[in-house]
């Protein structure tokens, strides 16, 4: 099995450690991983701003880069969802469709495809799990509190395999953090307020680390935490699952 | 045709004269999608074992009171004890006519303004939401259950159904002029979400489950 590693542009440039952790985790689980060097972006920033019609170039590039893999795995629910929902190519619609079917967010790839049951990692900290909306409500990585349906959570299932992790309870389990792509600057006031409230929920419930499957939400919350000079850290779930950080200091 | 009717018709046709009816219907017809079938509405059997218990629990939860009674004498007893200060009491229930007090006139709905306690009967009550059904044929004026200060409703236990689906099954195609489900006293929470009973209508609702 060969997996194409799809790394969102901002992760590539700001959070290389997340991409490395993803790569290493997949390799440890015996997967052959390739990072296509010519990848850029899924086109979501434009599409969510109303410019989906400008994403053709991005789309065909994405198709060229990823068409040959058995699976495409991405450590971001939001970018994965965008590809799943919006990757089209008039000339190669069949291939686009196939890609839409084989692109996976990292945690769902681990639970649903690799069917991971145990992990060799240790992280003895209180962790707050941020459910990013696109991963949760879009990809259904975990049950949504609005629905009258049995609970489950793919990322939490994985976190529980890590020795020492204590997942804290939030008072609002799956409220949006307010990042929202360009929303975070276009609607600065509400975006920040949402972020502060989300962070506060984690902090007041004792989180030492806030984690999640989407670095964009985490980047937003990290920005707020750092402005507040809070000791609480932000970490992508891949870093914890890969076990490369055993101590916060 | 009376003069009034005629002028009303003129008014109607002049109002419709702009052809809005046809224009709207044409636009709707043109724009509506292909016919999608109407789903079958299931009966959704309710999980609770005792409709009486459920009804009481729910109605109490929304500010009502419930009494299980064996007969009308008990009802009389309770109402007399609970509403000692009522000056005008109007009962539409034959068996409870002895409780009537004060003015019995009801020709003008406005004249019901000072009714302290209205007692009505309901042919249908719903366990899942604590609602009772009544119709214009069962009250002297439609406004009575709304304008009174306190409302009492007599329901035969046999007429308790579990869900709204069953309730509409029972209502069927009854030809009322006005019908209403009432669930609890009139209420509002418009001021900072603090619940206040007695917004415009009754400040209390008492249901007697009889039989």
């Amino acid at each position, binding site marked *: 099995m060969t997996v194409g590693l799809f790394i969102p542009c901002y992760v590539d440039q700001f959070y290389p450690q997340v991409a490395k952790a993803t790569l290493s985790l997949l390799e440890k689980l015996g997967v052959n991983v390739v990072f296509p060097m010519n990848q850029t972006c899924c086109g979501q920033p434009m599409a969510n701003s109303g410019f*989906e019609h400008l994403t053709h170039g991005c789309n065909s590039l994405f198709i060229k880069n990823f068409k040959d893999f058995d699976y495409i795995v991405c450590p971001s629910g939001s970018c994965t969802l965008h590809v799943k929902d919006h990757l089209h190519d008039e000339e190669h619609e069949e291939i686009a469709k196939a890609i839409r079917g084989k692109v996976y967010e990292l945690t769902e790839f681990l639970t649903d495809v690799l069917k991971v049951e145990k992990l060799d990692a240790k992280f003895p900290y209180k962790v707050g799990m941020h459910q990013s909306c696109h991963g949760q409500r879009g990809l259904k990585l975990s049950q*949504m509190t609005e629905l009258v349906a049995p609970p489950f959570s793919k990322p939490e299932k994985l976190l529980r395999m890590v020795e020492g992790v204590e997942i804290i309870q939030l008072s609002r389990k799956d409220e949006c953090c307010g990042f*929202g792509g360009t929303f975070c600057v276009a609607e600065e006031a509400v975006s920040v307020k949402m972020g502060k409230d989300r962070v506060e929920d984690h902090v007041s419930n004792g989180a030492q680390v806030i984690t999640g499957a989407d670095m964009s939400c985490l980047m937003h919350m990290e920005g707020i935490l750092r402005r507040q000079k809070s000791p609480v850290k932000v970490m992508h779930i891949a870093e914890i699952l890969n076990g490369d950080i055993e101590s916060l200091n | 045709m009376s003069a009034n009717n005629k002028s009303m018709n003129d008014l109607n046709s002049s109002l419709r004269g702009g052809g809005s009816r046809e224009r709207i219907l044409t636009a709707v017809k043109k724009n509506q999608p292909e016919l999608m079938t109407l789903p079958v509405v299931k009966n959704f059997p309710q999980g609770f074992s005792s409709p009486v218990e459920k009804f009481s629990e729910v109605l109490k939860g929304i500010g009502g009171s419930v009494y299980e009674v064996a007969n009308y004498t008990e009802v009389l007893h309770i109402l007399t004890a609970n509403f000692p200060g009522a000056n005008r009491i109007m009962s539409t229930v034959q068996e409870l006519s002895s409780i009537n007090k004060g003015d019995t006139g009801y020709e003008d709905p406005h004249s019901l303004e000072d009714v302290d306690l209205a007692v009505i009967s309901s042919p249908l009550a719903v366990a899942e939401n604590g609602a009772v059904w009544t119709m214009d044929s069962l009250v002297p004026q439609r*406004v009575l259950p709304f304008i009174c200060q306190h409302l009492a409703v007599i329901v035969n236990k046999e007429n308790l159904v579990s869900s*709204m689906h069953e309730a509409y099954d029972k209502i069927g195609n009854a030809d009322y002029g006005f019908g209403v489900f009432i669930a609890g006293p009139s209420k509002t929470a418009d001021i900072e979400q603090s619940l206040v009973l007695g917004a415009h209508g009754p400040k209390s609702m008492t249901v007697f489950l009889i039989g």
Partner: protein
Amino acid sequence: MKKDHAALADKFNQDEPRVDWHDETLWWIRQKRDKAAFGIPEWEELRETASRIKFNVLSNLSQYLEQFEKAALDNGVQVHWAADGEEHNRIVHSILQKHGVDRLVKSKSMLTEECHLNEYLQEHGVEVIDTDLGERIVQLAKEPPSHIVLPCIHWKKEEIGELFHQHLGTPKGNADPQYLTNAARLHLREKFLTRKLAITGVNFAVAETGEMVVCTNEGNADMGAHLADVHIACMGIEKIIPQRKHLGVFLRLLARSATGQPITTYSSHFKKPRKGQEMHIVLVDNGRSRQLGRPEFRNSLKCIRCGACFNTCPVYRRSGGHSYHNAVAGPIGAILAPNLDMKKNADLPFASTLCGSCSNVCPVKIDIHDQLYKWRQVLVKDGYVSSAKAASMKAMAATLSNPALFKIAGKLGRWTIKHAPFVVNNGLNPWFKNREMPEPPKESFREWYQKNRSGTPQPSAGREPQYKEPSKSKIPH
């Protein structure tokens, strides 16, 4: 220029404790909704049923409207048709004139808000008293409602106490909800008893029987309608449902979704006028038939105005109803408003993070957040977004579709820094106002990968793509 959602939200956020209070009040209602919904094991199936009934309605609306009209006429009700808000207002006014009425009571109707009936009638010398307590409060304050179910959710009780002191003569400083509600009860009872004409909204209109159902907790619609000589019910044409028994489905969902109550206190079925009374129905289009013709947006007409999407919306809770500058605020308002006026409401579909919570609570399963996304595409294509933004998006698209450009851009001072939302680290940058920027690492992942994994074979990106079945190979160990 009028302030847009972001500017109005910014203003609302100047008072953070108040935002917290607003947010928590509405979240509490969302929790009540959850509790009520979780009490119904068949909840999701019920939503699906409601949704499908509404789809049927939309697909057969012209016939249902005619069926409804006929049944209503047979019931002795007079039926009027209004193409837009203006015509609706004229029709209502002409009925008033015919009866020589210049004062009336009105219960909650978002449709009349949408048509600006109050303003119209006031200009024509008619006094309108809104009788829903919350609506009366905002009316006294000369404001529009900020929520379709909870019109004065943005008002604190002390402020209402002061308002009532000024208008109803309650003692200064009394802010007890019980006391204030009773003062309003006395004030409004006098209106109910003296006004000869009552206007109500409509929650559901049954095609089969010609009856219309009005749901209130206060009983104000009934107090008005049953005491008045003339009852006018105003409704949008989408309020039709096929059969009486469908009320069972909708009444189970409506109040539970709205406030967490098992049903509203009153669910009144008006079928025929009472003896000596005149009953009118005004059927209003006002853009609905146009929305019906937009395949991507017609689902919005399934809305039953429960307000659940407001209460769950993390943006609405922190920006307040008035930031939407439209009669219907919140997520549903944001997808209805562009249909009414694209230019004026072009900002609203962007006032969302597309989190999707609204679609999940919606009792008729409107795909609200998907429609927000789709409205953005339409608004951009039709030119309702600033040309500066369009230019920067074009530049972004050019870079992102060209790996060579992207790599160069990445090297030259990290392209993403310029295009990601946080531009430069200074006070002018909206990101940086309240958030630190991520610290740029020594090298990007791409650079690291090139250095350390240059041996990994790359996909042949230049070649025309060919479809390849995913291999069934086992995971190697």
